[in-house]
């Protein structure tokens, strides 16, 4: 089942991978160039509640806009549209989606019931500071994903102290003791800084799911 959401001029598709369940919702945010999975990933079987997955703008079945202009903050708005539908959710992000999950955890600390940051495409972004100036023109490519998304979100700048400002906000304003959990093995500068912040949990995915309301399954 899919749900259509609106974010400004974008129509976003939210996939309900599992609607039943006794616990809180889990919202999956895919990596750069990916799309929402069509079924519940095996590693998430231990989650007790419903599971949803969002197609970001320019990805999957969501709107592919004209002329580019992507930012991670824009995708945070996408994820916030899903949060508006779900009320509250634990957010699990892969790659680019992990960065967006961090931003959302800091921006909506009362609605995000834990952010789990995992490896995936687009985790590093464009590094901690801008590279040599150049005008980014899109390559030809299969759409979706939008070639502009692949281009612009692989080079968006992610300063470590910008990332940690979202951690501190989540720590200060969330009701959870540990609102951020880092599972990713790759640690670009922003994520290394996040993982070293007080109050940030570092764990494997099964333990991270337990931290926010899942069961520990021995086979994952």
């Amino acid at each position: 089942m899919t749900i259509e959401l609106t974010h400004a001029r974008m129509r976003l598709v939210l996939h309900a991978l599992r609607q039943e369940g006794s616990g809180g919702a889990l919202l999956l945010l895919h990596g750069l160039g990916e799309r929402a999975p069509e079924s519940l990933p095996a590693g998430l079987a231990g989650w007790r509640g419903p599971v949803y997955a969002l197609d970001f703008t320019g990805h999957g079945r969501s709107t592919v806009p004209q002329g580019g202009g992507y930012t991670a903050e824009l995708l945070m708005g996408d994820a916030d549209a899903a949060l508006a539908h779900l009320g509250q959710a634990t957010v699990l992000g892969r790659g680019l989606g992990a960065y967006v999950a961090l931003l959302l955890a800091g921006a909506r600390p009362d609605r995000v019931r834990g952010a789990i940051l995992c490896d995936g495409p687009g985790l590093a972004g464009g590094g901690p500071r801008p590279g040599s100036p150049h005008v980014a023109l899109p390559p030809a490519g299969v759409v979706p994903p939008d070639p502009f998304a692949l281009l612009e979100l692989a080079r968006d700048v992610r300063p470590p102290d910008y990332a940690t400002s979202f951690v501190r906000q989540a720590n200060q304003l969330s009701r959870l003791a540990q609102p951020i959990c880092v599972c990713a093995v790759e640690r670009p500068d922003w994520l290394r800084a996040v993982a070293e912040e007080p109050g940030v949990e570092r764990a494997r995915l099964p333990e991270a799911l337990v931290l926010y309301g899942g069961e520990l399954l021995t086979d994952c």
Partner: protein
Amino acid sequence: MPSSPGQPADPEAADVSFPGAGTPDRFRSVDSFGLRLAVYEWGDPAAPVLLLAHGGFDFARTFDVFAPLLAAGGWRVVSWDHRGHGDSAHAALYSWEADVRDALRVLDSTTREPAVFVGHSKGGAVLTQLALSCPHRATHLVSIDGMPSRRRHPDVADHERTRLLAEDLAGWLDHRRRAATLVRKPGTLDDLARRRGRMNPRLSHAWLRYLVGVGARRDPDGWRWKIDPSLRFGGFGPFRPEWHLERLPSLAMPLLGLLGAVQEPMGWDTTPGVLKPYLPPESRIELFGDTGHFIHIERPDAVAKLVLEFVA
């Protein structure tokens, strides 16, 4: 829907005039990867090109006094409405990178020869990035209070900073949730001029009223600014003003930077002292006393004279 590029939205607009203001000589549009940008030209089409970029929440027709002065100096002055501004299309997405790319599309549509770049505020910073990205495309760069140096909330304690950031973020996200249905508030021509006057306190009501005539449209319930209602003043993000400053020494072409001495809401509060360590060899900074952020609007003749001498 926006009206056709450059055409007054209503005959009433034709009644609004301002001394020295000149309607562009030519109107056209440029496609930027599926997005239509409205382009305006003043001056001889065979003259060398001067690319002129407006600031955030402005539009090209705010150059209706300044651009004709440059054109009279022997230049083909080309400006455009940034995406979401003026008569350009309202986009789904907005970003700094997209604005720089749009600027290059306008330049590509105009000439392959090196051109003079002149930009105000955000337009100055956008053209600085374009000049750094494509140094072979610019002969001179003029930045009119377009060199950022200010960071937000510089003097607050960390816990207070967190609260301020939280308010910024929640406010922005709440705005995004409403953005699909937002419309600009209607009013009379004078209402819109007065509202803009709150952000442009040094500009005369007569000038702001003129801007309504060329930058707003007349709907059945009143005038509305054409700018995309999903755009929001202020904001947040990873950008650091010092990144802009640190790149200035790399500029390959002469730089003329103009600053106003009076701080005001839309200004960037950059001072000559802040810029000094970052200036490239061929650069000149001019500080205008008793002048705010809109230096070219407050002092059009003086600024045009300086620019024309600089690029001669």
